[in-house]
């Protein structure tokens, strides 16, 4: 008989989170992505500590200045400090991305669960909704929705969020379909658990892994789209600093003052690359089987 206490036990902490973290940490690109994201988040949260410039204050005497000691990234056409606009703008750009994907998740996940759990006409209806949302080129859909609802931060979040809905519906539906026939679900039903309880307590927690991964991969897309709308002038409205809007405002100065266009673009690029790396890392660490699905 083997004494359990004699078995090699190097680590005492072997919680699922610890195991996940071990795998994630060994993935160099994912770690780089996480560092980039943490830096970006920290910089925008700590904006008041990193710069004492006001991102909204015009100073026409100092307009269109090249990068210098007082203005490390230069000033824009109204003399506003670009660095402070990038830092404060990050708050808005990232918040919009998170809220939009959050909206897609909050609507898409229950719809997907209902679709997979009940089947029948509800399934048919919800799947057609997803089909319709997917039958537009996505940027065109976001653009049309914003035009329809009018510009503004709230409408921007809604229209970008709507784009994220179908992927959550599809994913959760698939997961629910496989979980529905598990023995423990039958067991729950046999002791009289109600449908909503089975869905929310027993099915959805087990379908969370693909949802988390999908959310992280969708975040990059949401940020690019929201900034793209800002670039066209249909996103966050000036003078509020947002990376895409900043690019759009500066594009007339592309020939004379190209540096104005560099930093907002670099900021968006770092955010997206960080999110993509972390998303891929999450997928590989949480569930490598999903590699071909997401």
């Amino acid at each position, binding site marked *: 008989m083997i004494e359990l206490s004699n078995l090699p036990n190097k680590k005492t902490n072997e919680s699922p989170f610890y195991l996940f973290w071990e795998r994630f940490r060994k993935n160099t*690109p994912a770690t780089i992505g996480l560092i980039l994201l943490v830096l970006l988040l920290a910089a925008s949260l700590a904006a008041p500590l990193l710069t004492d410039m006001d991102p909204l204050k015009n100073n026409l005497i100092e307009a269109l200045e090249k990068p210098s000691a007082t203005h490390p990234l230069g000033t824009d056409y109204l003399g506003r400090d670009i660095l402070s606009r990038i830092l404060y703008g990050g708050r808005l750009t990232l918040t919009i991305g998170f809220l939009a994907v959050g909206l897609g998740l909050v609507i898409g996940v229950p719809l997907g669960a209902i679709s997979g759990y009940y089947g029948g006409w509800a399934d048919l209806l919800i799947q057609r909704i997803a089909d319709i949302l997917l039958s537009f080129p996505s940027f065109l859909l976001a653009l*049309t929705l914003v035009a329809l609802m009018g510009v503004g931060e709230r409408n921007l979040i809604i229209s970008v969020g709507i784009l994220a809905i179908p992927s959550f519906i599809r994913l959760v539906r698939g997961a629910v379909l496989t979980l529905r026939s598990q023995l423990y679900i039958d067991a729950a039903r046999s002791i009289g658990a109600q449908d909503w309880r089975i869905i929310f307590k027993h099915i959805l927690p087990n379908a969370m892994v693909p949802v988390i991964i999908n959310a992280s991969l969708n975040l990059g897309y949401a940020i690019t789209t929201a900034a*793209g709308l800002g670039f066209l002038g249909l996103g966050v409205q000036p003078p509020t600093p947002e990376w895409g809007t900043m*690019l759009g405002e500066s594009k007339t100065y592309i020939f004379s003052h190209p540096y104005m266009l*560099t930093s907002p*673009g670099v900021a*968006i690029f770092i955010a997206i690359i960080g999110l993509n790396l972390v998303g891929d890392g999450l997928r590989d660490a949480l569930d490598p089987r999903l590699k071909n699905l997401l």
Partner: protein
Amino acid sequence: MIKYILRRILVSFLTLLVIVTFVFLLLRLLPGDPAQLYAGQNATTEDIERLRVQLNLDKPIHIQYGFFISKLVQGDMGISMRTNEPVWHEIKSRLPATIRLAVSGMFIAVLVGIPAGLFSAIKRYSFFDHLISTLTLVGVAMPVYWLGLMLIIVFAVKLRWFAAAGSQEGLRSLVLPAFTLAAFSMALITRMTRASVLEVLSQEYITTARAKGQKEHVILYRHVLRNALIPVITVVGLQFGNLLGGSILTETIFAWPGLGQLLTQSLFSRDYSTVQGVVLVFSGLFILVNLIVDLLYAYIDPRIQYD
């Protein structure tokens, strides 16, 4: 097979109908009175009422819908709120530019993406594999609007190799917008090809082919590439929709006289009847391409299930 094709066509048709309905509602859901929008800011009340009757906007909504569909079938997309010209005329004159840009973009993406992915997979973990993987990472993360602006700064302003805007200078004008549009799809196609080739390379029939002494390049073309390209075709098809969406931004950046530019211009001049037309044409193209890809897929991969 025939049944599958017919059903797929029917589904595309129904999707198109839903989109037409959405586009019809677009104008009616907008805040404000459509007749007022047509007449413009300075129109008198009589003008507005006359237009309302003329455009059938005084009829109940289902009658309006009937008119909308029957006109659309005859190729009539209504008149522009800005120019008072038929919307279809403007769209027809701009469609070739957009198609040219999208097809060039796709051409670049496929022509670079598939060989790059194949090479990357064959020379797995080599320096070139890492280089290509890094470049695809960059390509996927680069927002199309920023890439376009950076390319203009480097290749049009500093180096003066290519034109920064417009489409008058032939190839000199086409290269930058086409590459900008292609970058994302190129990266995705490269990734997909690499993954797919690696998967095929691990199959037993490849080992068999090698064991019987088949030459490596024959194995690559006859066995690997043919099988590996099946999933790549789906990605290429899906990317076409992405290219259409991307062309809205690309055309705006490069002042490319296509539908994307027309769409943004119309949005800003509140020319919603033209917006309707462009959205319809874009979505119609997207549905058409998806249909073609699905049918092509069924033709190429006989293992596909038709029901």
